[in-house]
């Protein structure tokens, strides 16, 4: 297995404006070239991989449409990579000619060195009237665990312990329907704290939501995020009937999980929740759920936690890096990045091995829909926090997303009076890939859409400067996801 981390970024600038970008990287024996602006992905041999940076450099000195010849490439290639190419090699020129033909064909088909034509388009998209389509209902600001890394401060979100009343929840659903325009699919996540501490209200709200569907021509997709402590057969049966997705919090290996996810008395929660989660996943036929873990500085070998969950039989797995102030002992530090990169590479390679044996599983951060993925408008405009997506506190206040709850500067309105702070909403609306200088030049911009506004705020005090560690991990995950696609498409390794 090749876990070396090699990447090259090729950006062509004309008159100071970035117009073309390819990204090349090696992963698990594959040489991969992304044409960022068209979304095209090419698996190439080593010769093309080596030619492309030279080609790009030479192309800048050529007139529009003028082709680059093998005679020009060959000496530069032999100088750049003397170990691999010798000028007197009998068939080198012929091979370079073939490679150039392939490159020219892709350029003509607009699959290589394509231009970034989206910035003005996105301005138009941003001007459209947005509607609300998703709510994160903080049904309980209370929790029965004391997770060490909880951004909700053990469920309280830096405020009082509280449960959402049925009346507030009902008003939230009415607010959603009233502000969703022609949007048919509406999403409501029951979140916390721990939402099962307020399960009777969850049930009543689902019933109320269903009662609205026909008259308003809406379809609610309810989801539930739970730590599993209060999970029982009745709740599972209800969730299997009503919840489009459930997110089950478990971090992986017992010692890892119990260290970060103890009960208030300090004892671990792994042994209580694991059997319930296994049963729950089976009862959902191993679909429409995620076991969802967080890795920290304490378990940088998190691939073992992912594989532990897979070996337990879970087929839908998400294990994600903790987001925490760098002062916390469990926070991911810059020095951790090389190890984490290798972990992702190793995990991706192992996933390919397992998939090829018919023993694969889904790892959320390696999932990528190349053929049926989102349109470019969605890819560039971000997660929708503050505009399409809002979080609702137990007493009905609205925040741009669950991670901003409790930070009074981000109070955006309430479910009774609607959006009050339109300046704040406009700020979130303007927050897209092109409003972030660092994102404009990043190959991953069409896959992460500019990253998480809450992460930006927590690390930089504004919502437009990306969180660097998060970016590095995101870029690696995109590369791994593409490598997996290449491997499963049975494309030759070079």
């Amino acid at each position, binding site marked *: 297995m090749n876990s070396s981390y090699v990447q090259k970024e090729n950006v062509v600038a004309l008159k100071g404006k970035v117009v073309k970008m390819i990204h090349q990287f090696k992963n698990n024996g594959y040489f991969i070239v992304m044409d960022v602006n068209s*979304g095209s992905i090419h698996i190439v041999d080593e010769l093309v991989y080596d030619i492309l940076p030279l080609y790009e450099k030479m192309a800048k000195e050529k007139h529009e449409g003028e082709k680059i010849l093998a005679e020009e490439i060959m000496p530069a290639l032999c100088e750049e990579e003397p170990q691999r190419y010798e000028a007197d090699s009998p068939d080198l020129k012929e091979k370079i000619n073939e490679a150039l033909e392939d490159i020219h064909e892709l350029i003509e088909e607009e699959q290589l060195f394509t231009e970034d034509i989206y910035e003005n388009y996105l301005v138009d998209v941003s001007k459209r009237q947005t509607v609300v389509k998703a709510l994160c209902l903080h049904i309980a600001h209370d929790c029965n665990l004391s997770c060490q890394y909880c951004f909700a401060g053990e469920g309280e979100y830096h405020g009082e312990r509280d449960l959402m009343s049925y009346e507030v929840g009902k008003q939230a659903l009415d607010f959603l329907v009233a502000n969703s325009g022609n949007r048919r699919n509406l999403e409501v996540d029951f979140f916390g704290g721990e939402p099962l501490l307020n399960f009777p209200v969850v049930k009543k709200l689902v019933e109320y939501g269903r009662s609205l569907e026909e008259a308003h021509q809406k379809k609610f997709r309810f989801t539930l995020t739970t730590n599993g402590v209060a999970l029982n057969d009745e709740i599972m049966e209800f969730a299997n009937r009503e919840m489009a997705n459930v*997110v089950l919090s478990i971090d992986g290996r017992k010692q890892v999980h119990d260290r970060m996810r103890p009960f208030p008395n300090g004892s671990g929660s792994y042994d209580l929740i694991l059997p319930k989660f296994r049963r729950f996943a089976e009862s959902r036929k191993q679909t429409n759920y995620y076991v969802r873990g967080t890795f920290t500085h304490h378990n940088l070998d998190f691939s073992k936690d992912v594989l532990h969950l897979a070996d337990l039989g879970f087929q839908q797995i998400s294990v994600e890096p903790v987001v925490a102030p760098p002062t916390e002992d469990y926070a991911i530090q810059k020095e951790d990045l090389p190890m984490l990169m290798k972990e992702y590479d190793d995990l991706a390679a192992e996933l390919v091995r397992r998939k090829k044996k018919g023993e694969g599983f889904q790892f959320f951060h390696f999932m990528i829909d190349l053929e049926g993925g989102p349109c470019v408008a*969605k890819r560039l405009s971000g997660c929708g926090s503050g505009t399409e997506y809002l979080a609702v506190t137990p007493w009905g206040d609205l925040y741009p997303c669950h991670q901003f709850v409790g930070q009074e500067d981000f109070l955006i309105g309430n479910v009774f009076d609607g959006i009050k702070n339109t300046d704040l909403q406009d700020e979130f609306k303007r927050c897209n890939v092109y409003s972030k200088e660092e994102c404009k030049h990043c190959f991953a911009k069409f896959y992460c859409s500019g990253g998480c506004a809450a992460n930006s705020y927590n690390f930089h005090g504004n919502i437009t400067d990306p969180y660097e560690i998060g970016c590095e991990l995101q870029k690696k995950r995109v590369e791994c996801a593409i490598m997996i696609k*290449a491997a499963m498409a049975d494309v030759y390794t070079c």
Partner: protein
Amino acid sequence: MKHIKTLQTRNLKESMKKGGCGECQTSCQSACKTSCTVGNQSCENR
């Protein structure tokens, strides 16, 4: 082509024509809650 194989991908330029309907899932609702991941989502308007 002898040296390059291209994976089937959605043409982003083409997606401008019919894009932006907004029926797709909100990224944070699916699993993550702490990171923005869009590329793994599916278009609901194809």
